[in-house]
């Protein structure tokens, strides 16, 4: 299919405001009389709060209000949790703190400086308790309990077999077994989370500006926490300075602003600073211990995969095990693995809790699988690319149902691998590798072939429960399209702007459907009172879902305009088409009407239009997930919950210094298949950005909690993300196997870079240190870990 605007490098509509300092982030929103909040946080990982004395703080000039956790509960409710287990959480701790940095009191003052002065005057008497830091130890019967409402820190444990795991292992010739360790990381967007709440005590209405998502998906959750009627809450989105999943539902931040707004009767803005964000963002990534086995037939075919996982969830369980639901979309990767055992234990400890961070749990899943494949290649004496090729799902096997029940819609994995091998200049790098080895230097060539599931269904959040508390099955996206009486086109989005390009994407779609210039389409953002159901960005869904919503709205309006134009031109609607923004007789462009002419007629000339047509041209289109099936009752089949599956092959080139553990990336090759590409530079930007986050995951990003439970990585000097200097030249190429399920055949691309790069770089480092007998099975590969591995292998 060839399109005029879809697939073209259309200029990015979002840029002008971002380039000129007019972005409108939450920190830019000013409301007259607003107060500023600061949060006092626990220095202890685990402690009972005996008492809090805020008298000196309250007496400080400029301070309007101080709230403890108990006082806040007079105004707001507890945090929402989507888990079935009793793991209660409040925005501000009440009797007990459960992680270092948990909020214990909040201050509202006339400016942030004074709020922090007041914060320093609050005295808290803690009874320090034994911290629960090691998740393995936390599983034991004698471990201190993070929650008294639970019998054990193992809040959830389930093992599921899909297919005949025992049988497949019994008939296997080789079983490759590895452990894997993926450490806790966080999204670290450059902009922290924030909210500005304004409450009207006379109507009970509240307005909240924030950089949260989900205001058009779960607004009632916010209303419940804020203690306002659902129909009196207005959540207004701001431009978001990056989220990567961490700002889906920033309940804590919204609740703190809301509590102070209600307590003071004035607007209150709470903007996390970096210390708040790192310590308490409530959205860290997985923190997993894997014990995994991959069974092979005598011919080197992958038969079965078992994964035994211990996941350190931190102190709370807000999204339950959704990150494992997510991983189960693609645990067997691009391979024809017939059976799977997924055994997961979710353990609570005294750390900040998990949420969703780009990859959302499938990132360590890709890691452990590709490590197993690399290990197998070594053990079986088969080249890694060849072993993968031998086991890929073939192009004629799609749609392909994997053991968990998810479906892969389309793909051509061999084509992606082959292209990657072609562009990676391997002859040159292999020669370099040999030359450097002779000099005692270690160059490595990595390889990873991984899936990127895109377009999630809500069922991934709950299907691991037999009796989920909220078995939701809607993950829609809505767009409102208006054509005004002069023919001007206006689109209102239900989603926020996260740094992706929703304005540009819908403009391209509308442009395609009407044949008009995308630059002429105006785009605005709805708030929670004006938008229809929209789950917003996340799970690499937005291009898919906006394409559906925008195309649906465009078709509705275009069909109506066609009917009205046909009536005006005294033709049958079947004989009228819309081409290049005009409505004309099909094949005979003699008589035609412009968009403006048709629109004016539609708006104001009811008597001249066909009977039954309403005046005006406006449509809100809600596009539901295009392909979803439910899990079965015994959970042997989770249904199709993430069926648009992109794929990539990454080949990083590294040099490793085994004496210092330094890893230098020399070059990076990636071939990506995300189906039909909506806008090539934008897709490339997402892939490169994801790859660099993947470099961070591979080499430097990690939360460190000390033995006493305190947080060792509390600022950007300790939690390190890549700079310009860690990034090599990245070459990105594309293969396009369209999706059969989506509009235009698009798939998602937002998470791909970060889903593949960590394991690809692990592969490269292992390849570099192969002569020294090192195999990487832990991320991040810090200098210290690499040196220890080199020394251990001696």
């Amino acid at each position, binding site marked *: 299919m060839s399109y005029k605007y879809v697939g073209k490098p259309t200029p990015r509509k979002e840029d002008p405001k971002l380039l000129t300092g007019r972005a409108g982030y939450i920190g830019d929103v000013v409301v007259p009389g607003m107060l500023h909040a600061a949060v006092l946080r626990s220095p202890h990982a685990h402690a009972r709060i005996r008492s809090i004395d805020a008298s000196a703080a309250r007496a400080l000039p400029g301070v309007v209000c101080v709230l403890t956790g108990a006082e806040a509960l007079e105004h707001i409710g507890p945090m929402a949790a989507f888990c079935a287990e009793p793991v209660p959480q409040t925005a501000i701790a009440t009797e007990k703190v459960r992680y270092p940095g948990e909020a214990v009191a909040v201050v509202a003052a006339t400016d*942030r*400086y004074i709020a922090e002065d007041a914060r320093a005057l609050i005295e808290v008497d803690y009874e320090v308790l034994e911290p629960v830091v090691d998740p393995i130890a936390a599983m034991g019967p004698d471990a201190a309990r993070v929650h008294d409402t639970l019998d054990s820190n193992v809040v959830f444990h389930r093992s599921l077999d899909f297919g005949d795991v025992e049988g497949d292992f019994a008939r296997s010739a080789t079983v490759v077994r590895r452990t894997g360790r993926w450490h806790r990381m966080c999204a670290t967007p450059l902009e922290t989370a924030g909210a500005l709440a304004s409450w009207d005590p006379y109507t009970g209405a509240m307005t909240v500006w924030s950089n949260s998502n989900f205001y058009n998906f779960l607004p009632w959750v916010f209303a419940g926490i804020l203690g306002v009627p659902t129909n009196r809450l207005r959540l207004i989105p701001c431009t978001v300075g990056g989220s990567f999943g961490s700002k889906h539902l920033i309940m804590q931040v919204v609740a703190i602003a809301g509590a102070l707004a209600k307590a003071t009767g004035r607007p209150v803005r709470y903007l996390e600073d970096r210390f708040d964000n790192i310590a308490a963002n409530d959205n860290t990534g997985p923190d997993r211990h894997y014990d995994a086995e991959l069974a092979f037939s005598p011919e080197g075919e992958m038969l079965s995969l078992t994964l035994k996982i211990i996941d350190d969830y931190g102190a709370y369980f807000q999204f339950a095990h959704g990150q494992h639901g997510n991983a189960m979309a693609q645990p067997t990767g691009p391979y024809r693995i017939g059976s799977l055992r997924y055994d997961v234990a979710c353990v609570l400890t005294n750390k900040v809790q998990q949420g969703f961070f780009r990859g959302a749990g499938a990132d360590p899943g890709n890691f452990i699988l590709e490590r197993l494949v690399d290990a197998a290649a070594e053990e079986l004496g088969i080249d890694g690319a060849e072993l993968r090729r031998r086991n890929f799902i073939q192009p004629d096997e799609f749609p392909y149902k994997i053991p968990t029940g998810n479906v892969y819609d389309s793909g051509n994995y061999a084509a992606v691998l082959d292209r990657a091998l072609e562009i990676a200049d391997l002859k040159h790098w292999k020669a370099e590798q040999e030359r450097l080895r002779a000099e005692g230097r270690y160059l490595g060539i990595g390889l990873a072939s991984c899936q990127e599931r895109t377009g999630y269904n809500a069922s991934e959040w709950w299907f691991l429960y037999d009796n989920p508390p909220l078995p939701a099955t809607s993950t829609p996206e809505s767009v409102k399209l208006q054509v005004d009486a002069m023919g001007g086109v206006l689109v209102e989005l239900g989603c926020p702007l996260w740094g992706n390009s929703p304005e540009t994407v819908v403009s391209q779609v509308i442009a395609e459907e009407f044949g008009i210039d995308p630059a002429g389409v105006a785009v605005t953002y709805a708030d929670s009172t004006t938008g229809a159901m929209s789950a917003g960005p996340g799970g690499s869904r937005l291009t898919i879902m906006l394409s559906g919503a925008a195309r649906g709205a465009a078709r509705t309006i275009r069909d109506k305009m066609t009917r009205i134009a046909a009536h005006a031109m005294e033709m049958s609607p079947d004989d009228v088409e819309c081409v290049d923004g005009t409505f004309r007789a099909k094949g005979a462009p003699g008589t035609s009407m412009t968009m403006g002419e048709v629109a004016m007629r539609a708006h104001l000339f009811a008597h001249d239009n066909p009977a039954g047509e309403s005046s005006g041209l406006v449509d809100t289109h809600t596009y539901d997930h295009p392909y979803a099936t439910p899990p079965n009752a015994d959970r042997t089949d989770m249904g199709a919950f993430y069926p648009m599956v992109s794929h990539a092959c990454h080949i990083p080139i590294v040099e490793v210094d085994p004496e210092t553990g330094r890893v230098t990336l020399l070059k990076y090759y990636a071939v990506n298949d995300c189906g039909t590409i909506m806008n090539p530079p934008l897709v490339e930007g997402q892939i490169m950005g994801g790859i660099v986050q993947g470099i961070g995951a591979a080499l430097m990003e990690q939360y460190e909690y000390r033995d006493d439970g305190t947080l060792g990585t509390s600022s950007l000097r300790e939690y390190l993300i890549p700079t310009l*200097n860690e990034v090599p030249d990245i070459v990105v190429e594309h293969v396009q196997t369209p999706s059969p399920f989506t509009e235009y055949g698009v798939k998602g691309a937002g998470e791909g870079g970060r889903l593949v790069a960590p394991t690809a770089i692990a592969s490269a480092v292992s390849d570099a240190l192969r002569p020294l007998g090192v195999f990487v099975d832990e991320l991040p590969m810090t200098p210290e870990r690499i040196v220890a591995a080199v020394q251990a292998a001696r």
Partner: protein
Amino acid sequence: MKPAPFAYLAPRSVDEALAHLAEHGSEARPLAGGQSLVRLMNTRLATPSVLIDINRIGELAAISRENGAVRIGAVARQRACETSPDVRDGVPVFAEAVRQVAHPSVRRRGTAVGSVAFADPSAELPTALLAADGEVVARSSRGERTIAADDFFTGPFTSALAPDELAVALRIPVTAAERTGSAFVEESRRHGELPMCGVAAVVTLDGDGAVAQARIALCGVHRRPIRARDAEAALQSEHPDDELLQAAGALAASAADPVGDCHGSAAFRRHLAAVLTRRALATAISRAEERNA
């Protein structure tokens, strides 16, 4: 995070600054580049009640070479030290160290004296100063004195400066040109970060190619930058070969008593001390040999 309240003073002369220090003593801190101090003030780990901004004291910005020493004034920017021929040619180990401090944008405001006075045990410039046998020129309303680098650094973020003293300059003896080479090598977790371990080495060879003098300083491996004197002694009068350099590295490592943190454990820093000492010496010696021709 926001700093605690303080009074702000902006003296126009050294005497004015010293008068303020005499009045306020340990309640006051001088502000030069601010790249370390303001960061600390923003987290309220430093809460001076008086800030004495010395940036307007023009005479303190000078870099000069006279009487066999390079003098770097308190307000001379790190970037200026990087590009100054006096520093580059006069004390190459210091110039090489400056290039590795943080990022160019930080070096445009940060000062060399400020970094030394801040006395971060992981920082590059205190280490280079120590290896070069430099001194800190300290003035107060009571007079002026010079403090040898080894006496200056007394512990983590602490120096021998009295509360009423201002570090007005560094005075670093010019490194011999003939048969002398230096090197500054470091390992950090990521570009621009403080090193887990850094080594400054200055080696002079004699006419036969044996070591006439070796000076080795390390950061990141103790509560302050240290001189690896045992390693220096082991090199004295010896012809350097791989085995000798390994031994020197091992001796430097045994002088280390690191504090571990999230970037590197104590054991790892000690390991790096050995590796980087060996490498720094190898580079310094090969540079010395180049100047031997």
